[in-house]
Structure formats: C-alpha cells, structure tokens
C-alpha cells in the first residue's frame, strides 16, 4: 500500500514537472518549405538543407554578420594572410562546447582537429569519411576548393594553416559558407568505430546555437537551445521546423498561430498579408539577379550598338509590375545592391523606343532583324514567370522592328544548350553563394566562364583584367574600386539586359522580435525572441 502511495506521489510530481516544463519552454515554430536532404551541409546544395543544418546547428571559421554580407570572426577569432596571399593562418576560439545530445556526449571542446576533419573529409579522397553518404561535395568542388587548397596543417591545438595554390581574395568568405561548417571529429570517430558512419550525417552534432533533437521526414525537425553556446544562449528554448510544402497552407498556419514565421509566401497573398494586423511582413532585396544575356558571338548581337538598342527597347518597369507583382526591383548592375562594391553611380538605359530605333539604324539594322528569346521552364525568385517575361520582351522589341521567336526546353536541356551557346538571347539568373562580388562577376561574365556559366559568351579584356586584378588582392577598398569600374564597363558594353533583383518577403506573427532577413536567403533563428 505504502509503495503504491509513493508511486502515485512520484508520478504526480513527474507529471507536474512535465506540464510546467512544457508550459514554460519558449517554443518557436518555423513553417519550413521542405525536408532537408540530410544534416551535413557539405554533402548538399539546397537552401532547405542549409536552414536545417548549417544556419542553426553549426558554426564556421568566419561568420557573416547576422543580416549582412559583412564577415566577422566565427570559430576563428582572427586570421593572418601572408604577403603573397597564399597562406592563411586561422587562430581558433577557445572554450567552445559541442552539443551534448541523447546520442553523443563530447569529451573535449572544439579544437584544430575538428577544422581539419571538416575540410579534409571533402578534400582527401582517401579520408575515411570521404565516401560516406554518397560522398559528393558539390559546393566544395564547384567553388574550385579541390584545386585551390594545397594543404591544411595543424600548428597547435588552436592554430590551423591553410596553404593555397594561388591567391584567392574571397577565401575568407568561402570559409564562411555552409559547406565549410565545422563538425565534431570526435563524434565522427566514434560513429566510424561503431560501424555507423551514416548516422554522423543524419544526427548532427555541432557547436552552433541550437542542438539537434529529432527529425521526422516530411513532418518536423526539433532543436533545443545550446545551453553553453559561446555567443550566449539563444533566447528561445525550443525550435521546431514544421515542414509545410504548400505556400497557401503555410499562410493559413501563420494566421491560425500554428507557426511564428514562414518563408516564400505566394506573391498573390502579399497584398492581404500587408493588410493583416496580426502579421508583420519584412522585406529585403534578394541576393540575386535575373537577366537576359545576349550571345555576343551571334550575328547582329556582336555589335554593341544593337545590344544597347535592345536594352533601351525593353520596358523594365512594366515587367516588374506585372511579373513580380511588387516582389522585385529593377536591376541596373549584375550584382544586387546588398553586396559591397555595388556601383550606384551606374546609369541604366532608360526605356526609349525612338533612341533605340536610331541606334539600330546606325548599326545598319534599320529594318530590324530576326532573333530568339529563350524562356526558362522553371520558376525562380529572380524570375517567377520567364515565359510571360519573354512575351513582354518580344512585344517590346517588335516596336523597334525586331522579330523574336520564343524558345523553351526542359530545364536540364535548357541549361545544357544555353551553355553550348545555341541561343541568341537567353533568360536566366543567379543567386549568390558567399556575398562576394567575384561570385557574380567572374562566374557569370569572366573569360574563363565562356562555354559554361557565361551565357553571353562575352570575353572583354578590359573588364576581365579588372576582375583578375581584384582577385589577387585582399584589400577591400582596392577591390571595391576595381569592381565599381568593372560595373561601368559592363553597362557600357551591355552583354546583358539586367532585369530584376527579387525582393524577399518574410511574414511572421507580431510577437516575433529580433528576426533579421539573411541576405543569402537562409533562415537563422539565433537572436530571435517571442514577446
């Protein structure tokens, strides 16, 4: 009898404890748009995966300041760059704890071994983890890291030296990217010994503001605040990703108070959201650009006057109004305004049909000519409806006597054929990776990129020289000057019509405070609180 009383009392206390715990825990619910592919950022490339992993669980050597593209110290407190720009020495932060979870208890703090493990796994084909979980390191390979990094050495427990094969000014920015997330070497070792290396990529352990608790595919991901986070504990206790793929349903959940923040609203819902008193709608220019590239190796398009005339003939404002429905701004430069070195002094070609006709006549095309416009078959933030956009451009060009045929292919085919330069003009865009201007300018307009991502096939020496020069120096002021000049040349030569930068909208409930839009399109919940 006595025992039963004890049990009853005990269960009452436990139950009460559980109840109070669930009442007092501050839970932030984010209605995310999809399931992550996994939890090791280096293996994947999608923003959905980064939100669930690198943005909230892991730290990198350098960080982007929350809400900007400015680089600040992360797990490295400082770094030295050698005179020739080839040796980077990172001084690591001390007293940084890894997460303690139900599946792993760390026995030591963060040190140089973790940095070496995280990078070497991607670089060294003989690394025991290289082939685990499919072993494709798309970002690492795509950013050219494989050829760039010559060696990584541990000088002592808190000093790591990277030696490069050539100077690379954006290297620190590269190390702040998602693929460079620092994972626990001790945990990796333990999983390898237990014969379950796959688990390392499914149940993550990091040093970041939130610790992973559980994941149910297509349903939810749960995190708790990392109690001893080196930047201070997060203000919310629990973070839940409630996976909701349909934008209308996300909006309904937000209205019903079932989540606090949702990404990617339907453009059609924006008007209503702005009027809704229970919703706070934040907005910021996205880190992207949508453009129409002229294939400068084709017929009339070789002539810069023709390219300028065609640029003037497009009514961009009409495109912004009817296709972006307010979720875009006119682009005049190939880089978005949130990136440093954006040259606001550049003057765009104003919409002017008469001037365009005159320029065409000067170029010997007074009677117009025939061309094509390629329209992407997919929706992108920088171009929500390429087909419609192509029709509007077609209409605009017909006013100056240019007849354009609209061409479209299945997405994979579209990318391949436009890479081969089969088009005359092609609609496409780009979303930045590391906030460095080089990530737009060299990738999309550099001579080395002709035949791949340089769809204009535009190789202009004065422009390219500036980019190459800028890549060799780490001096931001000098690089800014070079890129500003490059943007002027770009506009004058008009290899593209820069069309739009999308505007990112983040609707949230009124009680969310401290949220900042990440210019890289990620969703970071450190620093967020609920009123």
């Amino acid at each position, binding site marked *: 009898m006595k025992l039963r009383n004890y049990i009853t009392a005990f269960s009452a206390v436990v139950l009460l404890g559980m109840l109070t715990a669930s009442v007092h825990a501050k839970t932030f619910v984010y209605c995310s748009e999809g399931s992550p592919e996994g939890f090791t950022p280096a293996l994947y490339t999608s923003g959905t995966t980064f939100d669930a992993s690198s943005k909230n669980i892991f730290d990198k050597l350098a960080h982007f300041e929350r809400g900007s593209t400015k680089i600040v110290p992360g797990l490295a407190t400082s770094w030295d760059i050698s005179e020739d720009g080839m040796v980077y020495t990172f001084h690591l932060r001390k007293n940084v704890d890894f997460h303690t979870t139900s599946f792993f208890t760390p026995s030591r703090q963060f040190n140089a071994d973790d940095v070496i493990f995280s990078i070497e796994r991607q670089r060294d084909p003989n690394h025991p983890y290289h082939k685990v979980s499919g072993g494709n390191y798309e970002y690492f390979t795509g950013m050219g890291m494989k050829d760039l990094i010559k060696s990584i050495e541990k000088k002592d427990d808190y000093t790591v030296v990277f030696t490069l094969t050539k100077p690379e000014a954006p290297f620190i920015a590269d190390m702040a990217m998602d693929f460079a997330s620092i994972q626990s070497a001790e945990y990796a070792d333990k999983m390898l010994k237990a014969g379950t290396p796959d688990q390392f990529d499914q149940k993550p352990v990091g040093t970041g503001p939130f610790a992973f608790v559980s994941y149910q595919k*297509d*349903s939810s991901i*749960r995190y708790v605040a990392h109690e001893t986070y080196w930047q201070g504990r997060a203000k919310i206790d629990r973070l839940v990703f*409630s996976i909701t793929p349909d934008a209308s*349903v996300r909006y309904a959940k937000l209205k019903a108070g*079932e989540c606090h923040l949702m990404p990617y609203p339907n453009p059609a819902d924006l008007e209503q959201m702005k009027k809704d008193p229970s919703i706070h709608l934040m907005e910021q220019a996205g880190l992207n650009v949508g453009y129409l590239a002229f294939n400068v190796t084709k017929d009339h398009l070789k002539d810069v006057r023709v390219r300028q005339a065609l640029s003037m003939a497009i009514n961009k404002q009409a495109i912004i109004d009817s296709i972006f429905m307010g979720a875009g701004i006119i682009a005049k430069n190939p880089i978005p305004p949130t990136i440093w070195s954006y040259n606001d002094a550049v003057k765009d070609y104003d919409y002017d049909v008469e001037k365009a006709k005159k320029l065409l006549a000067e170029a010997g095309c007074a009677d117009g000519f025939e061309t094509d416009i390629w329209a992407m078959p997919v929706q992108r933030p920088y171009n929500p409806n390429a087909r419609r956009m192509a029709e509007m451009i077609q209409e605009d060009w017909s006013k100056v006597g240019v007849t354009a045929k609209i061409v479209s292919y299945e997405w994979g085919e579209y*990318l391949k054929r436009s890479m081969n330069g089969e088009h005359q003009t092609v609609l496409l865009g780009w979303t930045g990776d590391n906030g460095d201007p080089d990530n737009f300018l060299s990738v999309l307009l550099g001579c080395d990129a002709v035949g*791949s991502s340089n769809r204009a096939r535009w190789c202009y020496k004065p422009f390219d020289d500036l980019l190459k020069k800028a890549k060799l120096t780490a001096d931001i002021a000098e690089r800014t000057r070079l890129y500003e000049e490059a943007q002027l040349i770009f506009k004058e030569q008009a290899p593209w019509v820069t069309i739009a930068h999308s505007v990112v909208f983040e609707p949230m409930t009124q009680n969310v405070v401290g949220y900042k839009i990440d210019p890289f399109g990620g969703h970071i919940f450190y620093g967020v609180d609920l009123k």
Partner: protein
Amino acid sequence: MIQFLGKRFLQVLPAFIGVTLLTFSLIHLIPGDPVELRAGERGIDPKRHAEMMVAMGLDKPLPVQYLHYITGVFKGDLGRSFVTKRSVLKEFFTLFPATLELSFCAMIFAIFFGLPAGMIAGVKRGTVFDHMVMGVSLTGYSMPIFWWGLLLILFFSVQLGWTPVSGRLSPLFWIDIDTGFMLIDTLRSNEPEAFRSALSHLILPSIVLGTIPLAVIARMTRSSMLEVLQEDYVRTARAKGVSPGRVVIVHAFRNAMIPVITVIGLQVGVLMAGAILTETIFAWPGIGKWMVESIRRRDYPAIQGGILMIATLIIFVNLLVDVLYGIVNPRIRQTG
C-alpha cells in the same frame, strides 16, 4: 482455400513484372537527368557529370540497368535514393505508416457515412432523402481535392479555429515516435492532450481524402440495394411476414454488399492517388508527398521503389477482396 490463394498469386506475378517494366521505362522517358537538375544554374563540368553518372549507375545501357534493378528487387533491395542516399525501402517504411493511418481513417469515414446513406437512399427510393444523397455524392465525386482541402482549412481552421491547419501533431508535444502511427504513439506517450491533438489533425485530411470513396460507396450501395430489393427471395421474405427492417438488413443488405466490397477494394487505388494531393495540402508526411518530390528531382530509385510498393499494396488488397468474396458468397469460392 490454399489452392485458390496459390492460383491467385500466380496470376499477379506478371502484374508485378509489368509494373516494374512500365515504371522503369516511363521515368527514363522524362527528359532531364538527375545530375543536371541538381546542378541547376550553377552548371557542372562534363567530367564531373560523367563521374556522377557512373556513381549512380546511370552510364550503363538501359536493359542492363533494368536487369540490375530487377535482380535487386528479387533480393529485397530497392536501391538507394539519389537525394538522401538512404535505402529506399527504409524511407518507404518510415513514411508508410502516415499514409496508412490517413487512408484507414478516410476509409472508415467513407464507409461509416457511405454505407448507411446509400442503403437508406436505396430503400427510400425517389424520396427527398434519396435525391439529396445522390446530389451530394455527385458533388463530392466531382470536387477537386485541392480546392476542397483548402476550402475546409480556410473555414474550419482559419475562420472557426476548430481544427489544426496541417501536420500530424502540434509541435508543442515532444513525444517519441516508435510505430509511426501517431494515434498509437501518442497513446503510449501517456499524454492525453497529445492523443487529442493527433486525432484533431486527422479530421480534415480524412474528410478530404474520404470524400470521393464516400460518394462512390454511397452510389454503389444504393444501386446494388435497388437491384437486390427486386429479387424473388426478398419478396418471399416479405410475404413470409419478416419485419421490414430484418428484410433490408439481413436479407437484402448482405447480398447487396458483394459489388460494394469490390468497389471498396478498388477505392484503395483511388485513395493512393488522392493521398498525393491530400498529403501535399495538409503537409502530411506520407508516401504521396514523397513520390511527387522524387519525380521532381528525378530520384529514379525512389520513384521505382515507391511505385512498386504501392502497386504491390493495391494488388494485395484486391487479392484480399477476392478472399473476402469467398466468405460473403461461398459460391465464388467453389467455382473460383
């Protein structure tokens, strides 16, 4: 009985092979390869592209790929997803309980309302009730699932706040998921509130998914009842003075059930098709949503494996229906 089952089983084997062959050829007909789609605007250099095709086994000629796949299937290996790199079979079984739970509840909803409605409409032929049931079921049958789902969400969840918008359980409950059946898991968690939350999450999706089967079942029951009520033995029973209720329920209804059971069996296929939309609207983590996502990403192993498993399920259910027939109507067992 065993002979009967064996015979049926032999008959479904060619169907299995057909399904694998059909899905395999269809997905390879969709343009675009998985490597290029993943690279997107970023592009991928041809060398790396070739490497990845080799890694995925996509460099070999199609018949070789198929042979490799089908031998795997017979060994119980459906391959690994290109995207998550996890075993397809494992992925299927983590998501399947969600679809099963939803389909089961939708079916209960459909049968619970469909059978009595159809039966009464049949008995009270030509009355206002009959016309109403037929009108409503026609509307239900023609209702686009997507629109119907959003309509219910907007009305019951957003306006009235009676039911949750989507998902399977409120994120405020942190219970352990063992079986994957939320109702069972929440019951085991000793948190009555969690069970209530799971149940309330099931209401709207079950109604949406169950609407079409409900309409079909109601109409089928009605016409089958009408037919049976004309039979001689029903007249005989009535002439013998059996009470009208007993005539309808015992004599007529049992025989009217035979075609209805077939229809219920066939509805399993409809449920699977409907689940794709319903799961997308209600963010229900099941097979349907997984399939759509896999097709979009050209995740060949996941598509092939998923469709094979669904086809197997449908074939199996129809086999079960055949067996059930035998129980309801012994004549089929003897001649079949």
